């Protein structure tokens, strides 16, 4: 179709294309710059980095020099694993109970459980601190798991509910009419079909917990701080180049994790839909 390209069409391509290129540039550049900087030989975050070395990574992985960072990283992993685990159990059960319930009360409960996604995290963080101190608890990883559970559980609830509502009810009816019990249907029909949804939600919840700042900020102390809080401290005090090395490790892990999730459950497709 050889249509005459008017001035308008050319300007459209120019403006939209230009702004889109700028968007990709702004999204990608900082990630690339941090990766480059983390391999610097120098002692500052100068750009372009001077020389090439693994020096900062060696320091980062040195058990005695970076003990506190390692401790924080393990705290982060522990909190993320347990809060995701509890989240999967509680949110999957709740979705099974509510996803196909059309009653007003069920719809309301479903939306209500999503409210941590809307509430500013810092407000819940402060509320949790006031609440747990009033009850007499001291800062611990357990409290952090409880706090993270509340703000990450909605991710699992959302993807699981979405999978359940796409499930063909005829499958459940036929399973039942063939004499299968509710539990057997759940185990052999429902769960296998919604497993990718649960997995995608668990992945998002896990990442949200690893990344969480507002709740950890209020519920952690020097002994129980998580990686983001420790990194924040390192950035606020002196600009430690090890932060670049930590960032490099996190970028590489996020990249790998995403490839894995893409292959197994089609994560980007699920996030888009």
């Amino acid at each position, binding site marked *: 179709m050889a*249509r005459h390209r*008017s001035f*308008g*069409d050319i*300007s*459209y*391509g120019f403006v*939209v294309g230009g*702004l*889109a290129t700028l*968007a*990709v540039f702004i*999204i990608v550049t*900082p990630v690339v*710059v*941090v990766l480059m*900087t983390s391999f610097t030989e120098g002692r500052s*975050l*100068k*750009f*372009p980095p001077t020389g090439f070395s693994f020096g900062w990574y060696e320091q980062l992985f040195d058990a005695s020099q970076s003990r506190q960072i390692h401790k924080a990283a393990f705290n982060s992993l522990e909190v993320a694993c347990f809060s995701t685990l509890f989240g999967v159990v509680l949110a999957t059960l*709740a979705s*099974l*109970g*509510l996803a196909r319930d059309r009653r007003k009360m069920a719809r309301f409960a479903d939306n209500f*459980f999503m*409210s941590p996604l809307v*509430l*500013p995290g*810092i*407000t819940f963080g*402060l*509320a*949790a601190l*006031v*609440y*747990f101190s009033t009850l007499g608890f001291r800062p611990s990883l357990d409290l952090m798991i409880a*706090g993270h*559970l*509340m703000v990450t559980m909605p991710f699992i609830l959302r993807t699981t509910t979405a999978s359940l509502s796409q499930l063909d009810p005829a499958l459940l009816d036929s399973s*039942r009419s063939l004499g299968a019990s*509710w539990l057997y249907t759940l185990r052999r029909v429902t769960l296998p079909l919604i497993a990718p949804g649960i997995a995608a939600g668990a992945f998002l919840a896990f*990442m949200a917990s*690893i*990344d969480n*700042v*507002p709740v950890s*900020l*209020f519920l952690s102390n020097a002994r129980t701080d998580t*990686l*983001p809080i420790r*990194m*924040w401290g390192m950035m606020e005090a002196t*600009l430690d180049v090890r932060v670049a090395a930590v*960032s490099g490790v*996190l970028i590489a892990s996020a990249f790998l994790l*995403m490839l894995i999730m893409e292959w197994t459950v089609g994560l*980007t497709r699920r*996030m*888009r839909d």
Partner: protein
Amino acid sequence: MSVSTAAYDPSGPAGHLPSRAGEAKLRLDEWQLALPLALAFAALFVAPLLLLVGVSFFNDDKITQAGFGSWIKFFGDPFNYKVIGDTLLLGVKTVCTTVLIGYPLALVYLDLPARLQRVLLFIIVLPLLLSVVVRTFAWIVVLGREGMVNQVLQGLGIISEPLRLLQTELGLVISLTQIEMPLMLLPLISVMSRLDPNLRDASAALGASRWRTLFTVILPLSMPGLVAGCLLVFASSTTAFISQTVIGGVRLIYLPLLIWQQSLVVYNWPLAAVASLSLVVSVLSVIAALSYLGRRSSGHLHG
């Protein structure tokens, strides 16, 4: 009439058939599976927030004397109004910049072949999975005195002295634009890729320019995605504590920093509670207004 149809309706309640009675009971009880979550939610989410509201109605930081003192103190100080205004304005500015460059990117995404779409989606989602702290740190490296922007501009001879970009609102808005971008793009792309491509072809075949197609066909139809993206970006950028404190520094004060100072530095919990409830109310009321406008605009379209 309803009674007679119910007897033949296989999906209706069939409680009077003995073989199905137990099953009907089981199905009725299915909602109880939500009870464990409901209990945890009540104990760990609802109760703390109610307590926070309660604490805000105390006058002193020892939480002994009930009253409206903290509310009066917080809203009696003109400085706090400025902080609230600056916080909301930061959100608005970030929303504007993410729309300005994010929307065109979503348009380009639509025109790409499927393989490139996957690559672009990957690029868009990856930053979302990177810690906010890492993304914030990245901008320190890019915007710093010896950072990439200053080095490039000096190298090109555009400036002689390094620009001060960190600890300015400009630098903060640029950084937040990248940090919040996935939140704008995902709902946009989700809505846009469901648009019928025939609509665009029809518009072009009828002689509309691409600009006209954009503003009269694509933009109105993608409104739900655009509004959703704006809401997410607004909510996230107004409460982005780490980015605000690290890139904005201590001279740019936004509500999250104020809450942090009052609660963990000064230990005045009632005042921190008032500040954090003000944050919730101001952010959520903007969000409610935006989503109301969004619903009305898409309502016009169908109505």
